């Protein structure tokens, strides 16, 4: 019964929470001598203020299947902000600076969007993921990362 109630509540609240967005979804970055820099664009298209929390993870592949693991010391990732309050109909950019001990490497950023704090009931979060591949000049960067699960094992 509790699950049914939660489902009804989710469905009734869902129209308020569908208006979030991120870009890019997938990004291939060319590693330079210094840190590689890029940005993620967070969109609040709703008429309610939202809080967004960014969580980075390592992106790994095992026989082509993607999985995410906690970020290890082999990826040096800096975000200009990890928590943002985005007013209605506004967008925010978070700057990303990354370097990897072993190239190529991949990581994900999970952007968790949530509305105002509630004293009772349940809080609904929307998680949107984006993948970043930090590549050398070698061709087929993503394929290389997908086919070399051992690359991850070496780093951990």
């Amino acid at each position, binding site marked *: 019964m509790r699950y049914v109630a939660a489902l009804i509540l989710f469905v009734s609240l869902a129209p308020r929470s569908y208006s979030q967005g991120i870009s890019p979804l997938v990004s291939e970055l060319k590693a330079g001598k210094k840190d590689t820099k890029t940005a993620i664009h967070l969109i609040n298209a709703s*008429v*309610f*203020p939202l*809080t967004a929390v960014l969580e980075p993870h390592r992106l790994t592949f095992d026989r082509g299947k993607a999985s995410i693991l906690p970020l290890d010391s082999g990826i040096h990732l800096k975000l*200009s902000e990890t*928590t943002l309050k985005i007013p209605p*109909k506004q967008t*925010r950019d978070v700057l990303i600076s990354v370097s990897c001990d072993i190239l190529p490497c991949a990581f994900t950023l999970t952007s968790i969007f949530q509305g105002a704090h509630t*004293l*009772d009931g349940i809080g609904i979060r929307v998680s949107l993921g984006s993948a970043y591949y930090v590549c050398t000049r070698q061709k087929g960067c993503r394929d290389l990362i997908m086919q070399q699960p051992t690359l991850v094992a070496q780093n951990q």
Partner: protein
Amino acid sequence: MKRLLALVLFIAPPLPAQAINIRAGASDLYNSDGVSAIAYFTDHISELDLGIENGKFVWGVSDQFKFHDWEIIAGDKPIYIAQPGAGLGFVSRGLTAVKKDDKRTITIFLGMSGTLFSVPYLTTARTANLGAGIMLRQALTKHWDFTNDDIVDGGQKTAIAGVDYTSQKLMFEGAAGVLANKRYLAGQIDYHPVHYVDANAAHATYLVDGRQINVDSAGAAVTVGPASFHASTFYANNLSGQAAGGDLRIGPVDVGTDYLHSGKFPDSYFSHVTEQVTQRIHLSQFITTSAGRISVNYGGGYTSNAISFDVGYSTYFMPLLVARSPFQQALVVQIGLNIKGLSVHTGTNVLPTGGVKWSVYGNDFVYGPLASSRMPQDRSVGKYLIRGFVQDDHGVPIEGACVEIGKAIACTNEQGEFTQRETKPRSATFRVVPEDFLMPGRWEVVGGIPATVTAALDPQLLCVTIRRK
């Protein structure tokens, strides 16, 4: 202008709306100034526009809401003919209904119709006729789409049917019918056989002040490593023009030249050199050779999150010019400011007749009672850190607990950790903000926490313990 802004702010529905977008601007190019307010409610969007256009007061109002699967617009709705080269746009002041799904978009409107006046800060209309229409966009297959527009606007009738094909290598659009009582035929083809070759050809009909102008064009482009080459030809208004050129990028330097020829007019060469001095600053030099004269001009630009400006020269094909070469180079200035959510743009534009005009406009958001206050946005990745973790009174990490550090907020991740980056090793006030926690419930802080914290390269980990009330 100030009176118009005050009037819009007075009339605009202020409190129930969660976000009100206020736009204001003035333009020599559009010979107008005005203000508008778009209020976003939970279930509808309202817009009010007031302005002066060519010395006359103009207004616009609309309310947009959902009714079953239909989107209903009561009031002004700009209608555009989305056929290749069909430059027809007008406004319907009445009721418009739009239904969209994956394969089909149907638009039906009925009301007064008239001239649309739409600029970045103002959308208004002057209506004089009764108008009605139905417009259909239908996806036939993965690659083919069908479009049909049937519109009556006073005594003017438009009936156009078209198809378009889009694949990775080929894009084709074709349409035929009657556009504002005049015969209409348009087509466009773009062939992209490999990623470094592109070829295109188009025939389009434009209506400028009731005058029908047919424009034919064809062109091709090839990219070879850092070099690219392009050539094109135009024919419009009994005037033809040919252009060819190349561009080479070596590191931060971009060099390009264009050769332009048009009938009896002297041939011209426009060359440019652009240097990317830093990530934010670029410099440009423009060399023009025409009728034996050589002129050199300089430009440049600066781009940051808060301000950007660009001064340069662009080459335009202007078929309505009289007794002058249709290829003209014009000074283009663009300035943009973005300060705490307020954005302001100003710049010059070039008319098809060759005149240069200016515009300035800006927009800002005003928020309702449930919206959060403005929060500063970091413009760089700081190297100094403030770090900590939040746990409950049993030592279990808490995800979604938030702390306020200075004016910024930081919430904990799934490990119960929070991080805030600063560009300088400065101190900031520190407090736990249960009213902003992402997880529900009433929470309180257990034990003491510091009133201020200092950012450092390798900071000490702050520990915060909380519990449910």
